[in-house]
């Protein structure tokens, strides 16, 4: 399973739509997603069902879909905050999780441990406010 950190990437992100476009485009180019359009639809569908915000500035959009080729965790820290990710919130950090419909058990186990880690308040604090180095260390 791949773990990627995109720390203040150079692509321009003005809103939620452009972020999803840019991230999925990046993942397609790296061979992790096979159908960009389908992936964006799946993420949006999930967001409509309920918020994925887990801290005031941190969201964990995630999807399980046939559009995914390989499981991956992608941490993104933007240069600017997004005001349209969720009403009344300013989100600048994201942990995208992508999982293929048929995912190896080892990857699922890794994801499980990652989410358990994420439930720890100190780790959560690092993901919401920590430096690139600190995040690299716990990811």
């Amino acid at each position, binding site marked *: 399973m791949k773990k990627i950190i995109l720390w203040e990437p150079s692509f321009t992100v003005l809103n939620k739509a452009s972020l999803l476009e840019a991230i999925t485009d990046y993942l397609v180019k790296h061979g992790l997603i096979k159908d960009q359009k389908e992936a964006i639809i799946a993420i949006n569908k*999930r967001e409509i069902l*309920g918020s*994925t915000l887990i*801290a005031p500035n941190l969201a964990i959009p*995630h999807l*399980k879909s046939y559009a995914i080729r390989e499981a991956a965790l992608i941490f993104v820290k933007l240069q600017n905050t997004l005001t349209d990710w969720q009403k009344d919130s300013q989100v600048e950090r994201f942990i995208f999780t992508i*999982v293929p419909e048929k995912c190896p058990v080892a990857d699922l186990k890794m994801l*499980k441990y990652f*989410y358990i880690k994420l439930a720890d308040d100190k780790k959560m604090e690092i993901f919401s406010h920590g430096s690139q180095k600190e995040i690299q260390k716990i990811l």
Partner: protein
Amino acid sequence: MTIEYRQALINYLLKHRDFSSGSELSAVLNVSIKTISRTAKRINSQSVNRPIIESKKGRGYRLNYQNYLEQSTQVKKFVNVSHLTSVERRAAILKRLLVAAPQKHQLSSVFGKFYVSDSVISSDLKILRKMLHKYNLQLKRRNEYIWIEGKETEIRRAINDLLVTDDVISISHFLQSNQLIQQQDVSFVMRQLRLIEEQMNSEIPYPYNVNLFSHLYILIERYHNVGSLIGKKFELQLDEKAKLRQHSKETKLCKEVICNLNTYLNTQLPKIEIYYLYQYLTSSRVDNIRIDRNEISKQVREITNCLIKKVTENQQYMHINNQKLFTSLAKHMKPLLNRLTNNIKVKNNLLEQIKLEYPRLFEVVKNASAYLTKKYLLNPIDENEVGFITVYFAQAAENMRPPINIMVVCTTGFGTAQLLRAKIEKRFSELNIVKLVAGRVLNVEVEKHPEVDLVVSTIKLPSNIEIPNLVVSAMFTMKDQECLEQEVDHIRREMMTQ
């Protein structure tokens, strides 16, 4: 807003180290959340730069113990007797008369500083007489003198009941005005308590340690004040001697403590003091002993069994009878029966909270206790004691509670569901998470797991879900936690009534 609210809020926070949410406090004190906030502000206005009650958004309120202590001692320092209420005035007079009984006091020296009229003095004396009558004590007045007469045991019982709170700090404040002597007395008594604990090879838990402390402290103060007036005629009766002989270990220890007191007070205390201390000691719970069922006396076993039988006759509590409850309760009942025989009262600081949390169980235990007193011809078991017993049953009931099974749902069954699972496991140990499930297969999974009591989800659920469900945010905020707590309580109540 009354002073009672303020005190109730402080009392509650004193018993809870961590933050308590506004809604929790509002439910406990039966006032609005706004009133809680206003009360906290009002309390803090007494000490502007050092808040007594700290508040934190999203977490609630917490007592700053250091600031509280400083503030409360400051307030005490500046108490002006002329501003005392009539109840406080009478308590102050009672203290003076009881601690020094049977010493005579000039009426003017007792009432003079309060600047009250003759009619107020008469009505105060009338009320004090009534209060003391309960302890078979008499308030005497002759010429311009007043004093209290009665048995030494009754005088101490009255001091204990009327003047001693369960706050050790206030015990040490109320009697001895000389700070240095007061500190010496306190540290002497503390040393004796440690000696008792060492010799018994155990800790004496709260509130029994406070009871023993106040007994020894009052004894010292009485001998400091009126040692020569306390009759030395009290000799041990035959049955008392027999009891002491039966419990040689405790008797030896009591003798040692009284011997230390003799040295400390430079006097020879009457032998009856050994017996008084013995009564307190055997009326306290000692924590070290693992009681073997066969070691419990026939009387304690019979009464404990009868109490359990009576409480579990109630359908709601019929499932809580077990060996563990018997063992722990018997351990409590042994000194309780001694307390009843010896007329020793123990204050239960948590009584109001126990009544609030377990109203039904408290009533059931109260009725069962009343039945016991009739059947075994015991002295009445008061509400303080009923409160202690209730806690044993409540604990047994909680241990016997089956866990609540929940299913955690998100779109995929691994993302926010996994995160939520870790958070729920951390905060709600009583919940058993059966499975993490993807939203699209929820109906199928619910059918497969009929044992599930509640579905907790981070996504909106279809309306055709037939079992209780709760949607929370992935953040699992304090509000979400409160909602889950309420839902769990609701399910528990339903379980109890089924």
